């Protein structure tokens, strides 16, 4: 059985796990090709107009896979952590399979992978997925364990600073490739905080990391921070029940406290519901400890590469200027 996984949203978080798990169960996994402008345009055409660009990209990828695979797997992320209170992801992630089902009437209903950690553990979701695919359950523990190891390897790569797209490429066999340039030590360090699906997709973020790198900045991504670190930080911040946004807020807070970070870019997409409020909380509640600069960068499907490039360059210039001016005086920039 050939299962297509769209290269959007949760692809940048859970793909290594899903790939390894499904292959272990005897399926053939086919990810959709990397986003290009055609995919983006197609998604924008099919999807309703005022949702965030990441969801539109998902629609584009599903339409790429349509007809070429036996089933399209869409994760349905209801909750991704177990807490004493209700936790959610964005409503669009909760209802992604429903949106796909009614927007592609010609396709068979998408294969759902329901993640609802607050009411059932992760392995149970996997078991249900395997049952739904009528896969043999005999080797489940081994397959599951192997998939978990793959995911850990992926998380380890992210932790070392690689962005999701590079980490995925490395997992796919590019082991000999040199570490990306944006990780090397430079005079200015910029931390980019944003959802993995924005950070990881160069068509959506208009190669922001590339432009920061070209301007001579070292780039840290919010994906490199570990779960424990983020959880500990989140406890000091106002409570949020959106798990992913809570992570981003904690990431922004951590970066703003770090001495080696000169500036933070909070990457959001226009129409992202939770982010519209969380950016406001970040801007008003978090106080940069070392005088870091915070920049909100809003993306949408009309964002031009030149616009993002100009802003990246200007931001790095600004940081460098501030740093140089304060270098001799010994005061915090």
């Amino acid at each position: 059985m050939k299962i297509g996984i769209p290269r959007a949203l949760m692809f940048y978080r859970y793909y290594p796990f899903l790939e390894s798990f499904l292959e272990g169960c005897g399926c053939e996994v086919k990810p959709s090709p990397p986003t290009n402008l055609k995919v983006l345009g197609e998604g924008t055409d099919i999807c309703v107009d005022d949702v965030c660009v990441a969801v539109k990209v998902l629609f584009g990828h599903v339409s790429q896979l349509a007809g070429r695979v036996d089933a399209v797997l869409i994760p349905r992320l209801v909750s991704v952590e177990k807490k004493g209170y209700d936790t959610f992801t964005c409503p669009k992630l909760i209802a992604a399979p429903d949106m796909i089902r009614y927007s592609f009437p010609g396709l068979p209903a998408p294969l759902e992978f329901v993640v609802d950690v607050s009411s059932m553990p992760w392995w149970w979701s996997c078991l249900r997925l395997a049952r739904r695919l009528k896969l043999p359950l005999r080797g489940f523990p081994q397959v599951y364990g192997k998939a978990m190891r793959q995911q850990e390897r992926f998380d380890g790569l992210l932790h070392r600073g690689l962005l999701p797209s590079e980490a995925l490429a490395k997992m796919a066999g590019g082991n000999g490739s040199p570490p990306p340039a944006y990780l090397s030590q430079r005079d200015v360090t910029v931390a980019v905080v944003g959802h993995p699906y924005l950070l990881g997709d160069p068509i959506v973020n208009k190669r922001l990391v590339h432009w920061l790198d070209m301007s001579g900045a070292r780039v840290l991504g919010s994906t490199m921070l570990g779960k424990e670190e983020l959880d500990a930080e989140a406890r000091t911040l106002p409570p949020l029940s959106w798990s992913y946004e809570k992570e981003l807020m904690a990431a922004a807070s951590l970066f703003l406290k770090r001495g080696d970070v000169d500036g933070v870019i909070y990457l959001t997409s226009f129409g992202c519901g939770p982010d519209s409020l969380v950016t406001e909380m970040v801007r008003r509640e978090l106080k940069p400890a070392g005088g870091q600069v915070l920049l909100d960068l809003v993306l949408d499907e009309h964002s031009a590469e030149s616009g993002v490039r100009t802003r990246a360059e200007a931001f790095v210039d600004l940081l460098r200027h501030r740093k140089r001016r304060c270098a001799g005086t010994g005061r915090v920039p």
Partner: protein
Amino acid sequence: MKIAFPHMGNAYIPLKSLVEYMGVEAVVPERPNRRTLELGARHAPEFVCLPFKITLGDCMNALEGGADTMAMVCGMWACRFGYYAYVQHLILRDLGYEFDSLLIGREDWRAVFDKVRAAVGGRKVPRLAGAFAMLRAKARAVEELEVLARRLRPREEVPGSTDTLMEEYLEKLDRAASLRGVKELRLEQHEAMTALPLRPPNGTLRVRIVGELYVLLEPSLNFELVKRLGTQFGVEAQPVLSTYRWLLSSLWLDPLLHVSSSRARRATRAYLPYVLGGEEHMTIAGTLGAPDDGFDGVIHAYPLTCMPENICRTILPHITRENDIPLLDLCFDEHTSTVGTMTRLEAFIEMLRSRREKGSHSC
């Protein structure tokens, strides 16, 4: 303690009586209007949904009007509404306003209760039950008035007579100070409203309005959609949500609302198996049931970037195609113009009318 809360349709009448019955002073800012929206939009985050912007402006009006405590319902939900008050109060404090926050739902009940008790001087707590009875009575009176007015508007002989009468009674209701007074007023208003001269029946079109709560209930935001449909277009418009529903179901004061709500959830499950935190169940169930309830069309009204309603938007075309009922999407933001909305409404109503005529010919 001078307490204020943002407007939502006629909800201020029961809420004000709730607060005043407990012995706390209530500040009711002016009804939201274009200026309120512009004020709010100036200080609100850019792509937050419209209700946030207008209630922010509303809060600013209330604080200018002398309020020292801002109350609002909030919580930790998947929908953005739960975080409104928290973020709005951050913004307001940054703007230099000084006030106390009463975050009902986010702070625990005891904290809210203690604050109120401190404000009323600790003695008058037994009046709490009476205050809620008052809220309930007034909410019911407002609801009755609204339901009746929606039915009468397209049928009245003198255009605008329903609204004149309604304004008058809303004012009286706002002033009523006792449960007995509210009851008498209810009977009186019912009599007066039903005595209005009507035109001979001529097959009035009926439209159901579904969508986001605030857009449905706040006339200043939806350009008085319901009223206009009634008096200007001669169409009976029935929204699926009402102030009564919103106030009483969250306070568990009317079990029937929960019955209808869970029925709606059950109907929605086939389309949206998981709860999204908004009014998506009412939107979907309302559209599903519209043909059976005798409606000619459905209007879906929602603010720009509203998360649950956008998801409904991908599903509604499918439902309306299956059930053969026309659907009009109305998206509102601070740039939406009256003229554009009216043109679309006009075209939609015209279409419904010709559809009905065609239907009656073929029968």
